[in-house]
């Protein structure tokens, strides 16, 4: 009985480790007036319902490449959709001329650089890649 319990605990542990996704952090420029972002505001920005910060200024939204793990984790955590599903959704907005999807940046280091250099930028990256040069406003997991 004890052995069975130990086995079950071990299996549960393995399952938890396997299902855990890396945490994704959402970052903005240090000088941005925004200090924190709720899930709703993030969804509105990354799903094209608004292109503006709450103060009315235009946002420069940044995405990671479609085959990156961080992009997959970010959208899975934010709207529970795969990158393909999010692309299908964006195709509706882009090809009807309603909104343009976020700019694709090749890697986390360049996201940090772009956010540092643009006051109105917002991006996301794996929490292990973030540094103190930007401001973390939200966490998605």
């Amino acid at each position, binding site marked *: 009985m004890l052995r069975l319990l130990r086995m079950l605990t071990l299996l549960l542990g393995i399952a938890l480790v396997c299902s855990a996704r890396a945490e994704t952090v959402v970052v903005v420029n240090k000088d941005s007036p925004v200090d924190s972002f709720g899930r709703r505001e993030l*969804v*509105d920005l990354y799903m094209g*319902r*608004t*292109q*503006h910060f709450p103060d*009315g200024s*235009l946002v*420069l939204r940044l995405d990671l*490449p*479609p*085959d990156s793990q961080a992009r997959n984790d970010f959208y899975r955590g934010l*709207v529970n959709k*795969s*990158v*393909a*599903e999010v*692309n*299908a*959704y964006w*195709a*509706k907005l*882009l*090809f*009807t*001329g309603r909104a*343009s999807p976020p*700019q*694709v*940046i*090749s890697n986390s280091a*360049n996201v940090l650089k*772009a956010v540092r250099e*643009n006051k109105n*930028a917002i991006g996301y990256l794996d929490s292990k890649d973030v540094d103190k040069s930007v401001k973390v406003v939200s966490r998605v997991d």
Partner: protein
Amino acid sequence: MAFLRRIHRVIFLLAWVLVAPFSHADESDLSGMFRFSGFATLGATKGGNEILGFRRELDREGLYDGDWSMLAESSVGLQLDINPTGKWGGTLQLLGKDTVDDSWSDAVSWAFLRYRFNPDWTLRVGRIGIDQYMLSEYRSVGFSYVWIRPPMEFYTLAGFDFFDGMDLAWTTPLGSGTLMAKLQAGQIGNTYEVEGNELELRLKPIFGGTLHWESDHWLARISASRLRFDQREDYFPGTQLLAEALGNPALAPFWPQAAAYSDDFLLDDPYVHYLSAGVAYDKHSWQVQLEANHVDSDTEYYPSVTGSYLSVGRQIGTVTPFVLAAWAQSQNDRFIVEPPALSMYPPLDAALTALAEGLQTARDQGPIEQHTLSLGMRWDVRYDIALKAQWDHSWVHAYGAGLWEQKETLTEDTELNTFSLNLNCIF
């Protein structure tokens, strides 16, 4: 010549694709000033029978005899977005597909300038998508929906993809979602094939309004539009020869109704009204979508129709099987032409009979009465490529084949199969 024109177009489009830096943004310029993008569908379709020609849209050529075709549903779209400032912007979209008239002007699906007064109000001026039904503005972008094509019963008759004019949109948060209200006004000119003849439709003015509410899992919308045929006091496009022959006063002694039949083709109150409502739900891998519409026409020759569809899909990993059922039904009973009296002069009798038959054919080929059950699946091969397969079984009633191209009037109830396989991508 049509083939040459088509090849010429393909070469032009390929040149565009090859120079378009679509795969990644230029990271030294994050202003997003220019964005090239596109979508394509390469498909094989088997459909139609000896009388009815399958056509996905009214401006496509009919596919008969259960033949396979690579042209019936293939298309490519290229888009250039320009965003010089946050307030000003513009979009140009070219759509290449095999149409009846191979017209270059119709290849420009969008060409508009946009001005954003503030985050809530946006004005667009130019050639704009007509926002009639849920998929009206992106029916050509196969990658964006689960089926091979938007349901024929609902979307084939909506032959107008774009108009030239302006629209004004207002968005606001509402409840757990976002509400968008939009007004559109402008005009339309397009070419269709009806009974083997090309005909030009001009609609002016058109007015439309849409309410669209969207949250994480729900989308609900209603829309209404009013279109006016520009040919007031003229005959319905494509019916002029027949109408003028019927209107000949010399027929009156043998066929007193002829003059009234001729007048039926006159566009004396040339308005068509469209009403539609739709709901979509997407959660826990289930995708359910429902739309219903009513087209009300004051013109005898343009059918008043009620249509609806229901689609249920379930995503399993990267594969989404779905089932779709769609209906369309004209409002009016079959119109029976009162035959002319015989004159005892054989050549005249032959002409009268031919005229009466022509009129009956014209009145029989417009109405719509059919339903279709479809089964299919979408497989997301990659984040930008989807492969789809679909089987449609359609029940078309006698004298109710108005959605199909017709070689002759359908006089018996008929069942048809359509098979389609296609590859959709975005870039």
